[in-house]
């Protein structure tokens, strides 16, 4: 699997696409593959203030329930309703159409703690 270079990754298998003081957040290919068929996604309300590492939602496959952790602190300014309506997008296009939330970042220093595509690929290999 080639992980997109323009995204940053966490050990909890979330990705972040950072653009100025905004970040778009989703789960990785590895995460959706481990979960299996995604059938339910629960996302926060717009306006919610998130702390770094805080649970911002839930993704459920037929078998499993998994929390979603925010890689950054900030305010939720948009959620992907299309994903809520069609959870299978998380399996089909985890890095694009299945984005979950857009956050107005409070502090950009978290970016240094995230992995590049290459580091994340290596990290995932160590898990297999």
């Amino acid at each position, binding site marked *: 699997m080639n992980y997109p270079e323009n995204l940053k990754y966490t050990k909890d298998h979330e990705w972040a696409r950072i653009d100025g003081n905004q970040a778009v957040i989703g789960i990785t290919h590895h995460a959706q593959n481990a979960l*299996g*068929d995604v*059938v*339910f996604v*629960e996302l926060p309300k717009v306006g919610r203030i998130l702390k770094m590492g805080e649970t911002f939602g839930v993704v459920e496959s*037929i*078998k499993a329930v998994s929390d979603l952790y925010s890689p950054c602190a900030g305010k939720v300014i948009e959620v992907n309703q299309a994903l809520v309506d069609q959870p299978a997008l998380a399996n089909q296009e985890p890095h694009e159409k299945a984005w979950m939330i857009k956050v107005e970042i409070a502090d950009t220093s978290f970016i240094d703690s995230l992995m590049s595509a290459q580091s994340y690929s290596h990290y995932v290999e160590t898990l297999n």
Partner: protein
Amino acid sequence: MLKKTALFSEHQRLGGRLVDFGGWELPVQYSGVMDEHLACRKAAGLFDVSHMGEIQIEGPGSESFLNFLVTNEVSKLAEGQAQYTALCNEAGGIVDDLVIYRRSRQNFLLVVNASNTDKDFHHILEAHSRFAENFDELGITNASAQYSQIAVQGPRAAEIVSKISSIPLDGIRTYHFAEGTLCGSIQALIARTGYTGEDGFELYTPWESGPEIWNKLLEVGIPLGMKPCGLGARDTLRLEMKYPLYGNELSDHTHPLEAGLGWVVKMNKADFLGKAALTKAKQAGLTRQLVGIRMIGKGIPRHGYDLYSETGDRKIGNVTSGTQSPSLQVAIGIGYVELSEAKPGTKIRVDIRGTLVSAEVIPTPFYQRNKT
């Protein structure tokens, strides 16, 4: 060290995702739970269920001993017939649920849950040693290591199994079986039983013959739409039928009457283990009942979630199993509720991560196949 079935290498070759299931290393899925589930409903699914336990009871005293041991009426079981039943402790709690196959007048095969095999075997030996003087001679053997068990389930199962079976399958009615050969020369017990709600077969063969039968079934079945299915699909298929799963709906502390298994408890037969306690429970009246629920609000009920009354002010029970139903595309669950809340149509609430989400008790099975 996890136990492996004879089909372990086949699961690896097919790309099955292997997990620890009660001490057995088995595939939870191959292509995906949804895909496998729907293949089984539309065409056929192939399952390795070799982890199930087999206990053989034979000898002149076998029928009367079994009739004392389990809740259903064993004397009504004809040769070549299978029967679903429960094994209870003296408090009426369920030691296991199982299927008994009557191979001959004095020879029975008990197929039990994998994780309960040792417990069941000791329970049976202990019951026998305590009450042996009441019964004619009999032998009890844990034969689990001798059998591979492969299930073919789905509307095209008969067509598929008939391609490798030496005996015609038309003569085997539901919950009956025949002894024959598969793939030319492999001895097999061919049973029209299963755990999916579909027509289908469970094939009991010598342990080492598992791979040959499995691969032959794949060869003839895949062109007909059959797919190998893992434990994930096995669970969602049984859940859509509200078939109980030991460890979820059933335990040593639940009794068969509240679990919806009253139909396999024959109170009118002579004494059996648990009868006194179950009689008492019946006289006292049930306090809770296993029901099927369907979500009205958003969310999926899961094992362990609490159930509340419609107004949300009173806890009325808990969820024992739940999933998004692949066939029905709605979230469904099974759970115990107080008797007053058990009627189909009753509105209830499910505590999903702190939010009381609206749901409804509905008639089961959730899924009904088109019977032709």
